[in-house]
């Protein structure tokens, strides 16, 4: 009986581990998509509504999965300056959003000119970040599609194997 309980615990632990790794890939896809949507919204608030950057950031992040990053940048922009505030906000939330270093760098590039040029350049800046984010989103999706299921089922199989060997 104890062996059965132990075996099931091993299988459960391995499955949970695989599921966690798979959900990390899924989260990365979701958060990158949320960033892209919020950046499109930010572009609209800057280029068409002409809102000041702080308000534009808050509105762009509103009801988004990445609202923490946008509101953190809006909160800190007066004390740190927008470049540092955006950089800190992106890098400070990247672990929670399961982003890679490449994702962080692509997003952080937005801060260099954010708010500090005319509307046309703001549009170019945001479009440039969205363009550099596009292959990363594609890569994240394909990684999830190929590796996500592999992690989940592989982990369960590993658990079963370990349980069989131990029994």
């Amino acid at each position: 009986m104890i062996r059965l309980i132990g075996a099931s615990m091993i299988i459960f632990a391995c499955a949970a581990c695989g599921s966690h790794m798979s959900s990390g890939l899924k989260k990365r896809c979701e958060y990158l998509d949320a960033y892209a949507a919020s950046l499109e919204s930010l572009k609209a608030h800057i280029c068409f509504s002409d809102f000041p950057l702080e308000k534009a950031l808050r509105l762009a992040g509103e009801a988004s999965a990445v609202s923490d990053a946008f509101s953190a940048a809006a909160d800190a922009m007066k004390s740190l300056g927008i470049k540092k505030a955006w950089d800190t906000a992106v890098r400070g939330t990247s672990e929670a959003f399961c982003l890679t270093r490449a994702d962080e760098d692509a997003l952080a590039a937005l801060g260099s000119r954010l708010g500090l040029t005319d509307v046309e350049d703001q549009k170019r800046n945001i479009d440039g970040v969205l363009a550099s984010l596009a292959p990363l989103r594609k890569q994240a999706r394909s990684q999830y599609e190929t590796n996500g299921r592999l992690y989940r089922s592989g982990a369960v199989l590993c658990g079963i194997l370990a349980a069989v060997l131990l029994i």
Partner: protein
Amino acid sequence: MYIATNKTVSSSRRITAYMPHSLRRYMYGINFDTAYEIHLGVNMPLAVYFPDGRFFVTRRGILTRNASEGVTVTRADIDGALELITDASIYSVKDEICGGFVTVDGGHRVGITGSAVIRNGRISFVKDISALNFRLAAEVTGAADNVIAAVTDGQTVKNTLFISPPGAGKTTILRDTARRLSEAGFRVSIADERYEIAAMHGGKSAFDLGPSCDVLSGAAKSEAMITLLRSMSPDVIITDELGGDDDFKAVEKLLNCGVSVIASVHGRGVSQARSRCGDLIKLFDIAVVMSKNPRVGTIEDVALL
């Protein structure tokens, strides 16, 4: 510098909030209460203008008349200040930048120079910004004390033209006149083309304009006066520096509609103003001639027109 006849309200010290951190640390110990301008230029010493002359801020945080001892302003300082002035939203104040200045909280105006980008024969943006000139606003409550009796008898407001050379205090007296009339129960509207009278920022004025004063900023004064007439049902419209034919046509229209007008015009006296305005000066009931001597805001004459 304006010498208050009653009470001077100065918020000049808040200007340090718009200075980049790299310069702010030298400015904490300096009293800006009587300063009227702060000039930041790339590779130039940080200059502060007081009534008794120009001073430079040193690395020890004190003032000197020696330019070589002043802290040198860098490109990064200008960019940092610009970010603070515009709340990191240069795109949203593009029109103001093209107009040469941005108004910040407290009513201060920041003049901006750099390389103009011309599109369709007009300035579409200013890039490579090289200098910022902070003109510090100071409210002089009581500046209109000596003229208010001539402007109104409590029942009606006379059409009044303030005449003076630049820097004699026309705008300050117009602002205080607006406050006094507003407090006296008149519905006052201000056509503030260059954000000088009310210095609106974020939808509110940095100055006390009384309980019933509406402001339309940024629009050409001739258009603004007509818009205010249609939209706000004012008893009196106040505007600054009449110049073009359109301005006088708008004034004529207001007077025909029974609205009083208080305005200002550059000149050294009634005769000079008459040569500038022609017969249109007769639209006004009285002229208040001002001068800088012996001090800013001096009323030289109140004449019937």
